[in-house]
């Protein structure tokens, strides 16, 4: 748990945290962008000797940001994603040049502390794709325990033997990289500095991904929406907006838009879709059930996708999802991969629903009423995985049950907790 020493970095971090706290920065994509920019700044300006130092600085940054606003899940996601990329870059840099470098790296991991084993994990990923497959199959079990750490042995016998998954870097490296950790001489500190440009370009890639995420998600739109279908959506989601507009290029369909009180962002959505020439019908939220029998597909946007396949999305989504289930209408969530969060919401944390200003529901001026009534204005609903048919992401179409695997592939176990 080191902290940030550099004053310049600290200032930038504080700036972003206060923006997040004050909700001056809100929205999944915007927060993700700002975070990426900040991390890029950190990587550019941080002084680090070893890759571990850099990682711990970024982690400390991430910790502060997440503490500041745990409800903007994308902030944490982006930090984890970048950490993962840094490790991959490092592993690549370590393995491409003379083989010894990589060995030394592993050796350091093994001898110091199991915490520093991600380079090995990344390295082993490079070694063979079969490992990746193996890991992803076994991951649901380990995730259930939500124990951070690079679990090496995904065998059931091991699991039973140890009572819980544990990270055993030694065993891991001894099995998959038999070269062994013998040589404790060389220091990779120079290399760590030298990969800075590579890291920055990796982060820039993330940035590009974020900027184009709406397009990439909607690339397969015409495969999901067919002619003369009736599509229901709720509120305003830029992903869904792009998706529907893309589909409209090839298909002629009708969009029903629930207005999503009390934010009424559906109005904006309807205006935008209508302007794009889509046959749009704006309905009140209460009519969602009534129209559901006519709807062919429900397409919603997500605020955050959780590792169990559940989703935080605009308030009202759960209503639409339940209505859809009753009518056996497919429920589709459109979201960029950056919304994928390694968190679980098994216990449905109330606070994550993020209750906003009740003034939008009941005017503050209604003195006598507001004194006697507690007014709630949740921003999000939690939609459990069993109500969701499929996620459309920039990574392809994924059923809720596979979210776990995707989490495992996207982030390092060790970064789940920052």
């Amino acid at each position, binding site marked *: 748990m080191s902290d940030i020493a550099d004053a310049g970095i600290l200032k930038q971090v504080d700036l972003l945290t206060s923006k997040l*706290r004050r909700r001056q920065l809100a929205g999944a994509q915007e927060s993700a962008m700002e975070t990426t920019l900040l991390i890029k*700044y950190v990587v550019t300006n941080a002084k680090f000797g070893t890759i571990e130092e850099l990682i711990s600085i970024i982690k400390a940054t991430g910790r502060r940001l997440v503490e500041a606003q745990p409800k903007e899940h994308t902030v944490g996601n982006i930090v984890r994603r970048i950490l993962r990329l840094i490790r991959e870059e490092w592993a690549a840099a370590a393995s491409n040049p003379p083989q010894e470098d990589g060995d030394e790296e592993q050796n350091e991991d093994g001898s110091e502390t199991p915490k520093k084993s991600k380079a090995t994990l990344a390295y082993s990923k490079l070694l063979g794709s079969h490992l990746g497959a193996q890991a992803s199959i076994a991951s649901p079990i380990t995730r259930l325990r939500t124990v951070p750490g690079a679990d090496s042995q995904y065998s059931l016998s091991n699991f039973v033997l140890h009572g819980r998954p544990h990270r055993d870097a030694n065993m891991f490296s001894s099995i998959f990289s038999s070269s062994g950790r013998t040589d404790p001489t060389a220091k990779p500190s120079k290399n760590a500095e030298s990969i800075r440009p590579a890291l920055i370009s990796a982060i820039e890639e993330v940035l590009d991904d974020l900027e184009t995420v709406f397009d990439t998600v909607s690339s397969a739109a015409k495969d999901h929406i067919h002619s003369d279908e009736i599509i229901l959506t709720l509120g305003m989601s830029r992903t869904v907006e792009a998706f529907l507009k893309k589909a409209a290029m090839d298909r002629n369909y009708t969009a029903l838009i629930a207005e999503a009180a009390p934010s009424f962002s559906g109005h904006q959505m309807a205006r935008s879709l209508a302007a794009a020439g889509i046959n749009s019908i704006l309905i009140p939220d209460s009519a969602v059930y009534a129209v559901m029998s006519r709807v062919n597909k429900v397409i919603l946007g997500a605020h955050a996708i959780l590792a169990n396949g559940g989703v935080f999305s605009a308030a009202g989504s759960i209503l639409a999802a339940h209505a859809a289930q009753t009518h056996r209408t497919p429920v589709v969530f459109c979201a960029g991969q950056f919304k994928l969060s390694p968190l679980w919401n098994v216990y449905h944390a*109330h*606070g994550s629903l993020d209750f*906003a200003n009740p003034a939008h529901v009941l005017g503050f*001026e209604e003195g006598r009423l507001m004194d006697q009534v507690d007014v709630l*204005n949740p921003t999000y609903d939690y939609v459990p995985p069993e109500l969701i048919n499929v996620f459309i992401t920039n990574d392809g179409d994924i059923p809720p049950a596979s979210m776990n695997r995707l989490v495992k592939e996207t982030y390092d176990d060790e970064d789940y907790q920052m």
Partner: protein
Amino acid sequence: MPPKSTVKDAGVETDEVLQAVVIAESFNQRFQPLTANQPRCLLPMCNAPLLDWTFESLAVAGVHEVFVMCQSHFESIQQAIQRSKWSLPTSPLKIHAKFLPSTVKSFGDAIRQVDAQQIITGDFVLVSGDMVCNVRIDEMVKIHKERRKVDKEVIMTVLVKEATVGHRTRPKGETSIFTLDPESNECLHYEGVTAVPSLTKATIPKTLLKGRDLEIRYDLIDCGIDVCSADVPLLFQDIFHSNDLRRDFMSEVLTSELLDKKIYCHFAGNGYAARVRDPRTYAAISRDIIGRWCFPLVPDDNHPGGHQYEHLPGNRYLARDKVMLSRNCKIGSNTLIGPGSRLNDTARVESSILGENCTISGGAMIRNSYLWNNVVVGTGCIVKESILGAGVTLESGVVIEKGCLIGEGVTLRAHSRIAEFSRVAVGGNLSSLDGGAEPDENSDSDDVGDPFESGANLRYLRLGGTGSDASESDTEDESSGTEGDTDDDVSVGGADLKGDVPSSDPWVSLHWKDEFGREAFQTIKRGVDENIRVDDIALELKTLRMANNADMGRVRIMVVAFFLKQMPIIAGNSTKQKESAQEVFGKWGGLITTLCQGEMQMALQRLQILCSETEYLPTFGSVVSIWFLEEMVDEDIIKKWHALPESRGAEGSNMNKLWRIGQSMLAALAQGSDDDTTSEETGDEDDEDESEGEPDKATAPVTPKVQGPPTGGNTAKESDDEEEEEEEDEDSDDSDEEE
């Protein structure tokens, strides 16, 4: 790469630094005794000092430089600022604490100081150090600047928030009527409104009523946030007598044709902004924060004190740090529990806020209350709608009724009972505390002139106070004593009559702060000064009493006190003393008898109480004999008075001594029944006996004779005769005694 431009979100022209002036001085004492050791702006609101809420609001608004003007507790404010996160190098605010000299006695003076210190460079935000707000003030500043570009005479934009009458966040005793131009929201007229005396008519200058639309609005909360141009402090110098920003300054500016300045209102819309003006709004704003009305300034998100809270269903907020909850404690909705707090078995907390490290023992119930840090509540205590200062300890079984303010560090012994609206503090009596705590407080600031600080009006500002009892007798504001024992060094008193003469003063009736008290006093005084006929004065007083629905007892108390004070004391010479009494009562005695018709025994008792408590002690005998001579009282009345249980007083007290004087006088009357002169002399002698200090010898033998049967007989008779009236009198008499 630095995340885009850092100034971008400030929202104001970047070439100018947006300044804010925070007046961290309240210039009133509504929070006594909680403000004894700390300024109001450092009182905790939802476990963060009010000043931090203010700074957070300003930071959100894109303010860069803040001047905190403080007077009392300057050092502690300075320290608090230095310790807070606002002094870190990364802080967006640059905060300067400025000291106000003790000559500064009002808001107006403070602003004149701002001008004198030459700190303002342009348009600035003027707030007080006790506000909570999520309004984008920078947008307000932008609008203000645009208006100023068009019209240089625009000097101020006032933030207002709509809220219907009866809204909890409206400061009940301190509301206002805005007259606006419906198109531009220009404020054309302003009138401050008190709850008591209640306003029945709003006045609007004739000049406004010239073929234009007016919007007269009473549904606006004055948020106490103004965007001012740099002229405002200058104008304050010109209008040197204006003390209050709104009632004096704004009214003056708006009515003055000469100045020709303009003031606009800005509606907060869905934004939230309010000032902690009194305990009542303190509670309301706490509830607003808990109810998330000033989102994103909510405890679980952006707590100015840096605490981390978890938001649970029903707007319950639990600190993430070390909160210990017993398995069967009950936490009601709208509750905030601070870090390190502990709730034991079966403790109940509802709609309340617990500070840091509070301990609530088993069976205790806390409802609608605000407990600050380190409060310990013993088993079985009940706390209703009150504020408990830091470090208060309640031993088991203490009951605190609604509206109490318990000062820092008070320990209440087991099974104490604190009456409604009491204020309890450590260390001597509250009056000294009143005087010493805030240096700005002195007698001229609470002269009769400010109705906003009058006792009756302040009732509306109390926590839990509806003000509905304001028209009732004034029993309660004089004293709300405790039953049960409190610590020795704890004093309890009705300090909510701020600025009132301490309740122990026997002459309190001459300083009553409500309308009736003032008017009646003025009437009598004028009558005596101008030598008006007794009947006329009596008539005027009666009318006044009717108009104000005042109690007869109060008139009586006042006249007796007034005339007794008129009489000079001539020590050691009973003849001269009698002459002086004769002078006063010979002339004005008629007024007393007219006003106290049929209840002269009460007047007599009043006289007795006054004498027993003041330097008029030795004159009692003389005065009574003069009353007798002037036929203001007769033997029957003296007997009646003598029989009243309250007259007797405790053995050995002054009351009792005076009672004995009366007794001997009665005895003398009984002896020389038909000879006035004798009785007079007897009374006289007794008087002298009294002053010589051996009353027992003279009166002792008589005591058993008179005491027993007549007392019973008399009371019985009275209760037959005038049952209803008597009841009323007794009420008011109770209150007299408590004074």
